[in-house]
């Protein structure tokens, strides 16, 4: 709940929340992979 309040997801509609969380997870996954590949 606090995560949603701090990132403003609390004000978005459910499908927008899903979009944001998917994009965030994709970004984290790609960043992890690239970090691994580079290191």
């Amino acid at each position: 709940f606090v995560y949603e309040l701090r990132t403003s997801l609390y004000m978005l509609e459910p499908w927008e929340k899903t979009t944001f969380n998917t994009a965030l997870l994709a970004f984290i996954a790609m960043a992890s992979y690239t970090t691994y590949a580079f290191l």
Partner: protein
Amino acid sequence: EEVPFHIILICYLSYVVLILFGYMRDLMRKTGLERNTNAVERDREGYVQLYQSFESFYTRNIYRRIRDAWNMPIASVPGARITIIDRLTPDYNNTFSYPGTKTEAINMGSYNYLGFAENTGPIIENVNNTIDQYIVGVGTTRHELGTTEAISQLETLTARYLGVESSVVFGMGFGTNATNIHTIVGKGCLVLSDELNHASLILGCRLSRATVRTFRHNDMRDLERKLREQLVLGQPRTHREWKKVIIIVEGIYSMEGSIIDLPELIRIKKKYKCYVYLDEAHSIGAIGPHGRGVCDYYGCDPNDIDILMGTFTKSFGAAGGYLAGKKSLIDHIRVHSYGDAYACAMAPLVATQISSVMTTLMGEDGTNQGQQRIKQLARNTRYFRRKLNQLGFILYGNDDSPVVPLMLYFLPKIPAVIRMAYKEGIGFIGAGFPATSLTTGRVRFCISASHTREMLDKSIEFMDEIGDKLEIKYSARRRS
């Protein structure tokens, strides 16, 4: 107290998220992906675009998402308790419908400092008698036939209440500033205005075409520095000396809860021989041992202030505003004011309501109810502020100010607090951007003399409970 730095960074991030999704929604509405429920007449040609769509971007994409927590319709007087009409929204606040139910709530949001927003009691009897004696409203201006006996009595009483020579009243608080500042200053004059002054003061200064310079909020050093600088520089381009210099400030700032540093301001005024315009919209009736506003609060002489302005909305359970000061000045304003020339005069029953309240506050109604209310408000204010401070919230403003802004910083936290309070039967008011800066969203409590200790305790317990849940106890100070 400053908020931790990381809170501010995350706050800006939350706005970036809202702006990104706002643009995405605009794109979807423009491409037809999403049905546009804003404008109904979309299929007709030739409708000129009234406003830039960018100007309503914030309203359309950010405010709309949270607007169920604002502008709730009420079905009672805005007293200590309030009846709110419930609303439902099937489409995320695009449209509302009324299920017909109502919610009783403790009213922590209305400006009702002394609790005179009542529809029972002796004052209402006077008002009812006035309706029998006069009509409900006068449909004409003061320059024509709008001056009724009730208004004349009120102006005399107001001057006596404030301890100055004369006063003039207007039917609207905002209009009192907006339509009269031009009679005092004009081209070639300098106005030093607090940066957080009310919109009506800003509008009045702009209409007067005087040169306006702002100084940091309630910072008398910055004021003096700016004043000296401007006196030396003179008018822009010609550097001729100023015809007149006037400092415009408010007694209590309704968004900050701060009280003006009046003694320091009077010292500066006397030292540099300039004028002071003091807007006591919130402070008249609410502070000072006799309810005479900031002059009473600091024990200053009201005649040191050149123009006293105030409204009857917050402490008198009425509407309208007044200007008070030297008789020559007030006569000049009566002649040159837009408000007296174009606006309808104050309704006699409103004038009677105000006179009755003022008589009560002066103790001339045979009771000491006025004094009791003033003392009760001061006690409630100090109690409420101290309790919230102890709980670890960051509050703005002076300990004696009945306006208590509690800082939330994040925009989404404001509707979250208001909605949860509404479920608990407590009515809160929130303020966010653009009424405040981006990172200083807040919930603002307006304490009233008619709040009982139980009501305050219920609000405090509720805040304590959600303070932990929403992580809004930001204060780093040691808690007593």
